[in-house]
């Protein structure tokens, strides 16, 4: 129970309070008295808890399979120094840094995180984090809607399907309509109709993801950027694989005013989906609309430099129903992990990891596309994911790969009926040539080639 009370303590404290028993401390009206028998998992000593979880962990066979799963959650190398630092109790067990004088370390780390995100995205400002990439997109939509007062948003169909689904959940609450841009045959977003659609000036924003859900680099051309500017439509850049920022043009360079994304790749474990860490960065014009915490630099009464949570008048605990967002708890500790990761790998490491991802994915693409019955679905340049057409239901092929202890990727039919024969495969610096070889072998045995192909 982690409670230090002795019987004598309890007796003495009850006496001080002037109450006879622990039960008498918590009087509850008869109408709402607890009558049910509580059914929770049984109490165990710590050594047995460990045994229980080890037993449960063994039921996750998939954790030790050869894996080509990505799609917004990526397996990357994390130097052990990250855990050694981030798990220090001072960081781990701190609350939100309301009392700045005893929180200077954490506040400085948040300021460093904000800086890293700005440097990587090319934006002016960044917040202390939001829940994840999907909610970051939803929050960006609220920023844009409040900025220009328009009640429709336009998002690429090549944005992560879960991000689009979450955006829709949020927009339903605000009666905002979500419209989509189609995918072109090369795997980029089809922007051919965009100019016409923007002309009505009814869209608060256009959101594009690069690399997009298919791994394809998907940046708007200069004509599109101009059309967005001319119509006062805010371009939201989405980055679901933050590692790509170590290699690719910044979203600022391709015209984004708001950049949102997921920084799980920076040292945060895949952990069956969370916690991860979303970021929101923007140009200075959007400063007053950015949601969540912001750490800022100032001075103390003796002129010494220090950090505080600032511009809190945007936030729920001050502004209540007029706040820019309801967010209170964010993902500070995951952002700390990402900050330490970036400090450790530095510019050289980040470039090398990005290059290793590019190299491994090209190796994967070459090997897989040489297999009879497998081909690459898209031709546009890609980062660390590819879409492989297996010319038969992907689901069945993936099930066969599982028999050989391989997680071959995500069945695209799950989200795109038109790509039900396609598998989204990721390769990172963790992927080995041997693993690619095992996959190729298994694919050759699994992909049934119909006569005439």
């Amino acid at each position, binding site marked *: 129970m982690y409670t230090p009370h002795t019987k004598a303590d309890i007796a003495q404290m009850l006496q001080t309070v002037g109450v006879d028993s622990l039960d008498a401390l918590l009087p509850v009206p008869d109408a709402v008295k607890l009558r049910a028998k509580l059914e929770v998992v049984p109490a165990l000593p710590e050594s047995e808890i460990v045994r229980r979880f080890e037993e449960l962990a063994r039921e*996750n066979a998939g954790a030790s399979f050869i894996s080509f799963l990505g799609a917004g959650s990526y397996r990357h190398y994390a130097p052990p120094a990250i855990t050694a630092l981030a798990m220090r109790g001072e960081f781990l067990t701190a609350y939100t840094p309301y009392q700045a004088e005893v929180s200077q370390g954490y506040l400085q780390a948040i300021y460093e995180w904000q800086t890293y995100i700005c440097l990587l995205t090319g934006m002016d400002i960044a917040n202390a984090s939001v829940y994840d990439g999907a909610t970051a997109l939803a929050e960006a939509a609220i920023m844009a809607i409040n900025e220009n007062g328009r009640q429709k948003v336009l998002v690429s169909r090549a944005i992560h399907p879960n991000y689009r689904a979450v955006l829709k959940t949020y927009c339903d609450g605000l009666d905002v309509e979500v419209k989509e841009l189609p995918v072109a045959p090369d795997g980029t977003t089809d922007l051919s109709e965009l100019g016409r659609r923007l002309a009505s000036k009814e869209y608060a924003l256009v959101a594009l993801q690069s690399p997009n859900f298919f791994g394809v680099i998907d940046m708007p051309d200069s004509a599109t950027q101009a059309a967005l500017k001319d119509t006062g439509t805010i371009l939201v850049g989405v980055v679901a694989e933050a590692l790509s920022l170590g290699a690719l043009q910044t979203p600022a360079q391709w015209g984004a005013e708001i950049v949102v994304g997921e920084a799980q790749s920076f040292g945060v474990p895949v952990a069956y989906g969370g916690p991860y860490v979303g970021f929101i960065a923007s140009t200075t014009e959007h400063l007053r609309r950015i949601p969540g915490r912001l750490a800022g630099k*100032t001075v103390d009464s003796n002129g*010494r430099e220090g950090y505080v949570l600032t511009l809190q008048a945007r936030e729920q605990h001050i502004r209540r129903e007029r706040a820019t967002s309801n967010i209170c708890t964010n993902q500070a500790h995951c952002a700390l992990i990402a900050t330490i990761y970036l400090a450790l790998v530095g510019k050289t490491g980040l470039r090398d990891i990005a290059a290793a991802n590019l190299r491994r994915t090209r190796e994967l693409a070459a090997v897989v596309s040489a297999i009879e019955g497998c081909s690459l679905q898209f031709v546009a340049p890609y980062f660390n994911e590819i879409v492989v057409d297996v010319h038969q239901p992907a689901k069945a092929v993936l099930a066969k790969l599982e028999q050989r202890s391989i997680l071959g990727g995500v069945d695209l039919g799950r989200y795109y009926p038109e790509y039900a024969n396609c598998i989204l495969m990721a390769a990172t610096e963790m992927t080995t040539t041997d693993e690619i070889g095992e996959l190729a072998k298994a694919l050759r045995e699994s992909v049934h080639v119909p006569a005439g192909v």
Partner: protein
Amino acid sequence: MSPPASDHTASPLIFESGQDGRANRYFEREKPLKGYLPAAVLRNDLPIPDNSEMDVVRHYTRLSQRTFGIDVGFYPLGSCTMKYNPRVNDAMANLPALRDLHPYTPDTLAQGALRIMWELERSLCSLFGMAAFSLNPAAGAHAELGALLIAKAYFKDRGETQRDKVIVPDTAHGTNPASAAMSGFKVISLKSDKRGRVSVDEIKKHLGLDTAVCMMTNPNTLGLFEDHVHEITRAVHEAGGLCYYDGANANALMGNARPGDMGFDLMHLNLHKTFTIPHGGGGAGAGPLGVAKHLVDFLPTPYVRKNGESFALDFDVPRSIGPMRSFWSNFAHVVRALAYIYANGAEGLTKVSQLAVLNANYLRVKIREFLETPYDELCRHEFVASAQELKKTTGVRALDIAKALLDRGYMAPTIYFPLIVPECLMIEPTETESKETLDGFVDALRDIVETAKREPEKILAAPETTVVGRLDETRAARNPDLRWRPAT
């Protein structure tokens, strides 16, 4: 234990150290990026520093030493439930087959993870009297939003779209009205009565055909049990509305009373408060969202289902509001929370809330000897004291007391909240603190009040032992400096 008192020199930013070529060798040296992609899509420069691993380790070790966590000392932050975070929970979350499990792993190969989610969900349902919990929301405020979106979908389904008002007591957390606004509702702020509670008569004045949801925290942020709660939920239901339970203060209730029995239709929990997940300097948390039977079909997706002896993620919840986040749950925290429940069992959790309430009342009766306690009756897990009288006689405010506590090695209580108590100090000790720790805190607080009466300037100058003194927040807000910039 406070951070090293002598360390007044500023800590340079990570960007101000480092040299090109001082890179750590975690990876193979790779050939240039332009070998893989057209130059037009590559970035021109990457202005982040290369630092040696030792320099990075020293840098963040130093920053940790300038940070106050529960592991450093007593943390009586009201409404935040800063209890001990057991290390075994972290160890379990870091078991390789849990930590390295990809969210797209097929259900059949992730049965252990799904069982963990299911065991937590079932335990929470029983503990709080709900039909189902979604583990999808990432935090308490996120779950509030989810609950209000459920209410919106529910009324739409019933053809009652005119229900656009959410009633929020004036003692409520700021997230309540903010969540209501984010889900498109209008907010009615409800005045608390003289006893610091929601009054049945007052709420009835606001109930009608436009009532959507009434949001309540019980015990409320004054630490008081809403003893008319069943009459309130009945009145809201009679008006056709739904009742939401804000579980921020569930640590006072767990195992002793259940929101479901009180008539609540929707609720959230903060696993990072009640269930010992480390708060990590502001997150990540986790905010399970509970619903009564009539709202199960609206839960966010996915929902974990048990089919015979196997478990599956169900993405096909009939009238679901949809997913609220990228992936299924803050799973590492689900593991931690379940490990905590295993450590306690039902009986242990019941005792937890009793001892949390005992600690709070013990502090209350000790502290009222020298500070006003405006609602002076048996409290639950927390209570409020006020420095209003002290301020009148000495000029020393709640803020000054907070800063003086930092000098004495304690985290300050929540101050200036709830908004209805002037010069408010909201104190929540939690059950994991010993009588000795509580006595030490009382002595420190008494010393501050006595010093304030004798030499107020000493308290007004606090803190003096911390690495910086009081910071200029006005300047920070007026000239926002939110990042480092490279020299141009």
